[in-house]
Every structure is written in C-alpha cells, then in structure tokens.
C-alpha cells in the first residue's frame, strides 16, 4: 500500500513540478508552417532560445487550417504555458477569445494590434515593415543595373501591401525612374505554400527585366529566392536573415525583429513585468532593419541607407503605410 501511495505521490509531484513551477513558452504557428525559413521559423528559434537560455519548457501548435487555431491555443494554455506566442494576423480572433479565459497566462500576438484586451494580458506587436522595406527598396534600387526591380507578395492582404509600399517608396527615393514589377501569389492562405508559383512569378519578372527581387511570401518565398538564384539575379529575403540560403545571390534581407520582442517579453514574464498593450514597433525602436551578413550590401549603399534611416527615426522623413489606404 505504501508503495502505491509513494508512486502516486511521485507522479503527482512530477506533474505538478512540470506544470506549475516551471515557466513554459507556447507557440501557435501561422499557416506558412513552422519551417518556412522565415516568419514562423524565427518564432521557433526564439522559443528554443527561451528554452535554452531561460530554462523554460516549450509547447507548440501548428494548425493545418485556421479553424483549429483557437482550439490549439486553448490546449496550450491548459498545458500550463505562461507565455503564448500567436503568430500572424489570422490569429487575432483566437487570441481575443482565449486570452480573457486565461488571465494568468500572457500572450504575445505578432502582427495583431487591434483586439480588445479585457484581462490585460496581451502584448500586441505590430511592426513598421514599411520602414524596413523602404531600406531594402533603397538597396535594391542601388544594386539594380537594369533599372527594373521586382516584388513578390504572398497572400494579398493589407500587411503584405505594407511591405510592397515601403519597398516601392524606398526604390523611388533612390531612383525616381525605376520600374517596379509587383505580384501577389494569391488571395487565399494557400498562397503562403506555393513555391512553384513563386518561382513562376519571379521568372515572369525576370523576363520583364527585373534583376533584383524582394519576397514577402512565407514558404512561397523559398521558390522566389531559388528562381532568382537559378537565373543569376539578386534576391532579398524577409523577416529573418535569409542571406545564407543562396550565398552569392542574396543581396540583403529585411529584418523584422519579432525574436527580440518574444525574448524580451519572456524575460519580463519571468520577472513579472510583462507589458500588455498595443505596441507599434519600427526603426526607432530597432525592431525592423536590414541584414548585411552574407549579403552583397556595399559600404556605399550602407551609408546611404543609414542616412535615410536616421531621417526616418528623427521623423523628418515619413514612409507611407499602404495597409492604411
């Protein structure tokens, strides 16, 4: 009898220790999939960093369609996550529905900055992608020798228009005569998962004379960068530094530092100083930028871009946000 009792006790202790005493980070991925070499993968890598550096547990959920998101998020909250990262605008409704039911859990909603937060436990992070895209647009225009550059977006939503808008403004700022070819892959979430279509769009732009192409298309972007590398033109990555994917044909990458946001809020959750509310993060906050490592950004380009970045930070230059149109 004693033995059984002690086994029960040990089990109870184990269950308790893993759910109540240790912090856990939960990640709910967007439809691009966990390994898109971009947006979602960055969240995954950051969660791993939280796990390794802060000693947290980790739970994940990858929805195969949008209707599963809310369920998955509840499951993760039930499993005792102390911080849940909701990736992507499509999870706005799910976060709004789940967060009030779990007041002791903190939420970081990436690309969401408009939901009600009655329980005061949602960190809503929107990024000024148009500012980062402006800088890579400048670099693209400076690197292009044909005077034509391309943009391939994923699903046609205001968020992706924001990338496109910043990119076009940046390119025109450097070269008012530049021609910009812009394509969207599709109008359904499948547009994040179609690298073959991405490659085809890129080939059409190359036929149109483009010698630099910028992708903001999730998994579809893998096909875009591959087609660019195959054709020997320059590609620009997105969200995370993708320059390593095709060394020698990657010009730069637009960085969206959601890794910093997630890591910082994990630290603050542990310290009890989590900051709920709506946060619009841009160049001034150091949350968007461009990658030079493994890329082909020359010092001359860098100094021009830095000058423009300083003007944007100081407010003397405005980059229009196309998602607001």
């Amino acid at each position, binding site marked *: 009898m004693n033995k059984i009792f002690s086994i029960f006790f040990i089990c109870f202790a184990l269950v308790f220790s893993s759910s109540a005493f240790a912090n856990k980070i939960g990640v709910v991925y967007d439809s691009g999939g966990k390994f898109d070499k971009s947006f979602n993968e960055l969240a995954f890598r950051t969660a791993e960093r939280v796990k390794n550096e802060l000693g947290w547990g980790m739970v994940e959920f990858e929805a195969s369609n949008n209707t599963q998101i809310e369920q998955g998020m509840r499951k993760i909250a039930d499993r005792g996550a102390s911080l849940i990262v909701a990736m992507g605008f499509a999870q706005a409704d799910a976060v709004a529905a789940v967060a009030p039911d779990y007041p002791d859990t903190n939420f970081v909603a990436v690309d969401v900055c408009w939901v009600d937060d009655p329980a005061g436990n949602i960190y809503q992070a929107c990024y000024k992608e148009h500012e980062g895209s402006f800088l890579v647009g400048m670099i693209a225009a400076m690197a292009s020798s044909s005077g034509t550059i391309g943009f391939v977006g994923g699903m046609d939503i205001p968020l992706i228009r924001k990338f496109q808008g910043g990119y076009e403004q940046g390119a025109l700022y450097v070269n008012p005569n530049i021609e910009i*070819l812009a394509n*969207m892959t599709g109008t359904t979430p499948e547009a994040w998962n179609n690298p*073959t279509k991405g*490659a085809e*769009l890129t080939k*059409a732009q190359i*036929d149109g004379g483009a010698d630099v192409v910028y992708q903001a298309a999730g998994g579809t972007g893998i096909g875009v960068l591959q087609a660019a590398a195959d054709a020997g033109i320059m590609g620009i990555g997105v969200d995370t530094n993708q320059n390593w994917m095709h060394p020698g044909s990657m010009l730069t990458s637009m960085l969206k530092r959601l890794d910093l946001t997630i890591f910082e809020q994990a630290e603050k959750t542990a310290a009890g100083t989590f900051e709920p509310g709506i946060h619009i993060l841009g160049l001034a906050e150091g949350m968007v930028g461009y990658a030079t490592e493994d890329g082909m950004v020359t010092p001359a380009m860098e100094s021009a871009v830095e000058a423009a970045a300083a003007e944007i930070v100081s407010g003397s230059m405005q980059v229009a946000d196309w998602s607001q149109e």
Partner: protein
Amino acid sequence: MEYLSDIASLINSTLRISTPLVFAAMAGLFAERSGVIDFGLEGKMLAAAFVSAVGSYFFGNPWLGLFLAIIACVGLSMLHGFASVTHKGDQVVSCVAINILMIGLTTALAAAWFGQAGLTPTLGNDERFLEITLPFANSIRDVPILGIIYSDILSGHYIFVYIAYLIVPVVFWIVFKTSFGLRLRAVGENPSAVDTAGINVFSMRYKALAINGILIAFAGAYLSTAVNANFFREMSAGRGYLALAALIFGKWHPKTALIACLLFGFTDALQIRLQGVELPTIGTIPVQLIQAIPYVLTVILLAGFVGKAMAPKAIGQPYIKER
C-alpha cells in the same frame, strides 16, 4: 520587337505552368478510362514531390529520385486499386484517404528525417534537373522570328516540359490505336462485356493504375527537383484537382485534355502579367479580380462551348463478377 519577347515569355510561362497539369491529366486519363475515379492525383503528386526530393538528396542523383517517386506512386495507385478494385470500396473515399494521408505523412517524415516538418534540405545543382539549352540555341538567336521561336521558346526548359508534351501523342496512340487501349476503354464503358470476352477486368484496371502511378510521379518530381530545389509541405497546391478538372473539361480525351491544361496554364500566365498593369480607360484591375480570370473563363467555356461531358459509363462503379 518588344512585344515578341513578351509573347515568348507568355508562351514559356504557359508551357511551364501546364507541365505538371499535363502529366497529372494523362495519369488521370488512364485510371478514369478504365473506370476508376482518380481523385487522388493531388496526394500522389505530393508523394512524388517528397520522394523524389528525398531520393535525390540521399543518392545525389535526380533520376534516381524520379525512379523512387515512380515506385512510390505506383505503390499508392496499387493501394487505391486494392481498396477500390479488389475490395470494391468507394473510389472517392479511397482517393480522399490517400490525399489526406500524404499531406500528413510527407510532413511527418520530413520532421523525422530532417528535423524540419514539411521541408527537405535544399538540393545542389547536380542533384536536380536544370533547364536545357538546345544545341545552337545561342548562335541562331539573332535570326528573325525563327530565332525567337527556337532559342527563346523551344530551348531553355526543364526536361519534364519536353517529356510532358511528347507524351500526349503517345497516350493518344496507346488509348486509341492499340488493342490494350481498346480493352482499357471497354473496361471503363462496359466491364461485363469485356469479362464475357475473356479479358480480366481487374488486371486491366490494375495495369491502368500502374501507368497512372508512373505518369503522376513525373508531375511531382517536376515540382520538387526541377522548378524548386526542395520539397515544401502541400507544395502541389491543388494542381492535382486542377488537372482532374482539365481531364473532365477535355472529355477524357488526351487532345482536348491537353488543350484544357494549356488553357489553365495560359490564363494563369496571363493573370501574372496583368497584375498591377494599367489598362487603357479601365485603370488598374484589382488583384482579386485578375486572379479570378482562370476560373471565370473555365465556367464560361464549360457552360457555353464545351457541351456535355461524357464520362466513361462504368466510372466509379466497382466491377462485381457475376457467378
């Protein structure tokens, strides 16, 4: 001469986009002509894309990857046959099972083997199919008209593109000019009559499914080892369904199915080029509207011009041998 290179680019794009559709439609044609519905083209294409990328990665040879993809797809076709021909299960259900299974299995296996759910390692240039430049393509480029046709349109495609369009007349010949083809069509129209004539209905259907598996493997390998350099989850992106639509659209005939595939490819290539372009008097057309063009055109053609689609009579019906 600007418009000439635009036209060349449009034609190239059409050929590339249609290639997987042509393979899949021809694969579907064999199965459906024998009386077996093949809704599972999508899942098999996905399986082929995955297996060829993985095979090519492990063995460093894209042809070996393609060969393994053929084995995998023939295996899946046999599974479909086992469920729906031998055991007379519902053919659509069996196909849907294959489609769903492949979405999950490819993602899970990629996670198990490469630690990345739904993604395989990027293939080097010697591990994939590259675009082929035909002989003399560079030297006769400057010849007017002929230069563009040969150097810009005919040359510079992946080998799959050439195979796809050469295979259509072969399919036509097999289905309509050989005794095998006659039996195949008869099995799909009236299996009892064929059985009376002493031909084994089951073995005919299995043979058709085997050819189906071989052809669909090319479509998948084209996606992951030619156009792209890795497998990405759900990368078939509905092409299997679109090919099936082209097959029905083309009334289960290789010639018209090819035209339907090319039409889908053409409208897609056109919409890519019309996005964001200012048209005279209308202005810029919204992307959503442009992207609806292929589907709107399909509905119009189906409703107005194609006429009644005549399916093989015994399609979808398992054959029950009377004692």
